[in-house]
């Protein structure tokens, strides 16, 4: 494993996620829906650094992003699982760096986050579970996952490249 967590500058790069969530650049969004920045950062980190580090990074990101949103549902369960899962995939075989594979992993991850939000809304807030809410959830999940899947080959592979070069593996 790459031991990225030993480099403070790599660890500090996690703060790009809340910053991008705040700034929400309109050119990166699709009709107002922003890509899932947490996935774009967490995926390369876990793939290079292993399941435990990915799991902890997932918790850290989840806590930060939950603090910055109005609440109702939480990032934590999905991001914890994704950090561990991507770390497990990265540890298992050859390094994943093909654009298509990265895009697919990011797409699956964002779908999973969307589904976890939908299930949390569904179970925690029974009183407003109308059809409109379902359409909105699926629309947001689909558009966000497609957008993240398209951006991942560019941004995540770039992050992986930098991190691998600087930690020399």
């Amino acid at each position, binding site marked *: 494993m790459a031991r990225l967590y030993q480099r403070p500058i790599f660890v500090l790069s996690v703060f790009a996620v809340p910053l991008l969530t705040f700034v929400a650049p309109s050119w990166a969004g699709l009709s*107002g829906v922003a890509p899932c920045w947490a996935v774009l950062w967490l995926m390369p980190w876990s793939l290079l650094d292993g399941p435990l580090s990915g799991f902890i990074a997932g918790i850290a990101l989840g*806590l930060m992003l939950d603090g910055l949103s109005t609440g109702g549902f939480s990032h934590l369960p999905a991001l914890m699982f994704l950090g561990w899962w991507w770390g497990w995939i990265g540890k298992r075989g050859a390094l994943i760096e093909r654009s298509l594979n990265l895009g697919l992993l990011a797409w699956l991850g964002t779908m999973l986050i969307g589904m976890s939000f939908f299930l949390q809304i569904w179970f925690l807030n029974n009183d407003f579970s109308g059809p409109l809410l379902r359409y909105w959830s699926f629309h947001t999940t689909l558009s966000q996952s497609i957008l993240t899947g398209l951006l991942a080959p560019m941004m995540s592979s770039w992050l992986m490249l930098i991190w691998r070069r600087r930690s020399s593996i």
Partner: protein
Amino acid sequence: MRISPWAVLFRLRSFQRLTLWLLLPGFLLFVRLSKGAGLSDLYAIVSRPFWPGSAQREWLQSAYQLEQSSKLRLLEQDNARLRDLLELKKAATGSTSLISATVISRSYKGWWHQFLLSKGALNGIQKGDVVIGPGGLVGKIESATPLTSRVKLLTAPGSQIGVWVPRTKQHGMLIGMGTSRPQLVFLEKDPRVLPGDLVSTSPASSIMPPNLPVGVIQSIDIRALPAPSAAIQLIAPSEAIDWVQVQIR
């Protein structure tokens, strides 16, 4: 066995490294529990040069005048009715004041429908305060850090406020569905409302200020269960608002 001073030093260093990693979860937990204190404030300080300037003021003022005129008409009607019924002589608004704030971060279409405002607890903003944009009600304050505050928009899933239709004097509940048009659920079986009717905050509400314009009825679904509902087009557009006013208590 004798331990060399180098080994002691090495152990101390590894322990110091560990303390950093123990402090980090503590800090993150603080961020989570305080709803982003520190991070939001840091963002407010860093993004200060990029806040929208006063160029939008004129456009805002014309929208504000329109809002004021419709509000005035509603207030006059309401006042006359109340005076007739209860011989009430006090004005509707009590000891409240308005603070202008800039929207420094917005998300209005994804999972969260929220604004981050440039003023916070230091300016007296508290959770539950009402946020008014050009054209009417925008949302309510969900949390406040020292320098920033977070607004939950009317379109956010889970946002619920009591409103009424001034023309027919019927009450309903405005429920955010995540889409850009929140749903108005009527309390009566037979809402005599028509598309185009104005929806405003209820004059009977003790939480919201009375008679703030909210939106216009766009379509009505009489057969909806358990009660008839209507889609509301909000007057204040979330994607274009750069300045809002917070009504503090």
